[in-house]
């Protein structure tokens, strides 16, 4: 498990993919820090993160698209599955690697605040709250991306599939306003990643939201493991 996580994490950075993902998203973070804090004359760090929510959603499918599809295509999955590691171990290893790249981005996003703290006194609890929220949301999204990646041998299809789900989860809010059914509205609000995430950016640390994101991550890790397992039987 640790071996797989280490190898996969390294492999992100032995090709340009890891550098590009981290650099592009951090560049956007930098831009929105400027937009919100300097140009907007605001001190609400949460706004930076709520704007960046979309961009994080876009970058995660790119990080996860190759996890399982590439292994399956190059038949390296034979080495993993015939090794004395459980399938859940393999999936968790891959999850940690992909999540590690995302965590690196979020870690990088805090850098501007470190500089701000030299000249002022930023509210660290809000900054860390936002970062943790992003990590939670990232964990859920990474596990969904891994699951999609385990369904196909094509990285492109894996990426597009994860994009579709990411975008669907983003626009699901707008659905709730168009449907006139109390139950559906409630359901949609319950699923909405956006709603749960934005409550963090407003500084609300709700246990139910934390549990929600962690559960989504766990469910999709479980489903991915089952998917790998089922391939042996087909």
């Amino acid at each position: 498990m640790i071996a797989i996580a280490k190898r996969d994490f390294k492999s992100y950075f032995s090709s340009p993919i890891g550098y590009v993902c981290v650099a592009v998203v951090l560049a956007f973070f930098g831009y929105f820090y400027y937009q919100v804090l300097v140009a907007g004359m605001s001190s609400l760090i949460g706004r930076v993160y709520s704007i960046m929510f979309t961009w994080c959603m876009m970058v995660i499918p790119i990080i996860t698209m190759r996890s399982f599809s590439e292994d399956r295509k190059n038949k390296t999955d034979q080495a993993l599955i015939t090794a004395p590691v459980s399938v859940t171990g393999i999936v968790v290893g891959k999850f940690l690697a992909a999540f590690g790249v995302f965590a690196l981005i979020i870690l990088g996003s805090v850098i501007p605040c470190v500089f701000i703290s030299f000249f002022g006194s930023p509210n660290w609890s809000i900054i860390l709250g936002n970062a943790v929220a992003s990590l939670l949301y990232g964990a859920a999204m990474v596990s969904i991306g891994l699951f999609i990646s385990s369904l196909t041998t094509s990285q492109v299809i894996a990426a597009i599939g994860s994009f579709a789900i990411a975008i669907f989860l983003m626009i699901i809010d707008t659905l709730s306003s168009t449907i006139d059914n109390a139950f559906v509205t409630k359901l949609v609000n319950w699923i909405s990643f956006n709603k749960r995430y934005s409550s963090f950016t407003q500084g609300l640390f709700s246990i139910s939201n934390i549990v929600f994101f962690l559960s989504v991550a766990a469910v999709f890790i479980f489903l991915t493991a089952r998917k790998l397992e089922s391939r042996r039987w087909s």
Partner: protein
Amino acid sequence: MIEVSHLTKRYGVNIALDDVSFSVEEGSVVGFLGPNGAGKSTTMNIITGYLSASEGEVTIGGYNTIENPNEAKKLIGYLPEQPPLYVDMTVKEYLNFMYDLKKATLPREKHLEEICKLAKIDNVYTRLVGNLSKGYRQRVGIAQALIGNPPVLILDEPTVGLDPKQIIEIRNLIKSLGRNHTVILSSHILSEVQAVCKRVLVINKGRLVADGTADQLAHNLSTDHRLIARIDGPENELVHAIRTLDHVVDAVSYGEKEPNVYEIAIEADENYDIRRNLFALLARKGWPMLSLRNTELTLEEVFLRLTSGEDPNYFNKSKKGGQKS
């Protein structure tokens, strides 16, 4: 060491393996032979736990591969048909990764060094796997299978893509590993199986069709009462004279092989040795016999006979040619 019992693998309506059972004792090298698509790789994939069987079970060193997969997998070193290599790693990184993945406990540096020497990849140790030639990749694949010194080695076509010199090296390596490992190797190169393996399993269309040593297989299927002789003499008279000999069922000429020397295939009654009578006849007639051999099948012919529906009988097949000439 390896118990395979009643393995069946179905893909929808296609049956890839049909009730395959065999067992392999500790310390033997077994060749797995079959035409393409016969089920060799499927069987190996099931033994190593990459695939699951629709029915039947596999036990490795007492561990069932379904109930104790991790224990069973620890005992196996597997080289799949396509070596599972990460092209973005160096050989060193890759072997270290496989070392961790397999949870090997032998002293890392020393163990990897030994394996590299065995597989002869120490000169490419720091190069990227992606830049290696097919032969070297295959050897890295073999090295990977040896990590952790597992008692069972499953090698799926280990010499594919190697040059003749490397093939001999790898065969010798497998032979030497066979002394203290249990090895199953698949191949469709018959000479390889003959050179390396004591025992041969022939699989065709998902069924095990033969099991025995190469010599046994050849002997069982061959027919000792069929002879092929090269005789210096007039063709028609030769054939006629031999036909009239007692216990001869048929004689056919294969045509002129050397100037005025004809090759004659002779079929005698079963369980009757006509070699002495034949010699006496030819001596009487003054036709020198230049060679005499029986039609004992080569492994190649055994293989063809076992794996094709038709009877590739050397005698009958040559008969047609003989009549033409």
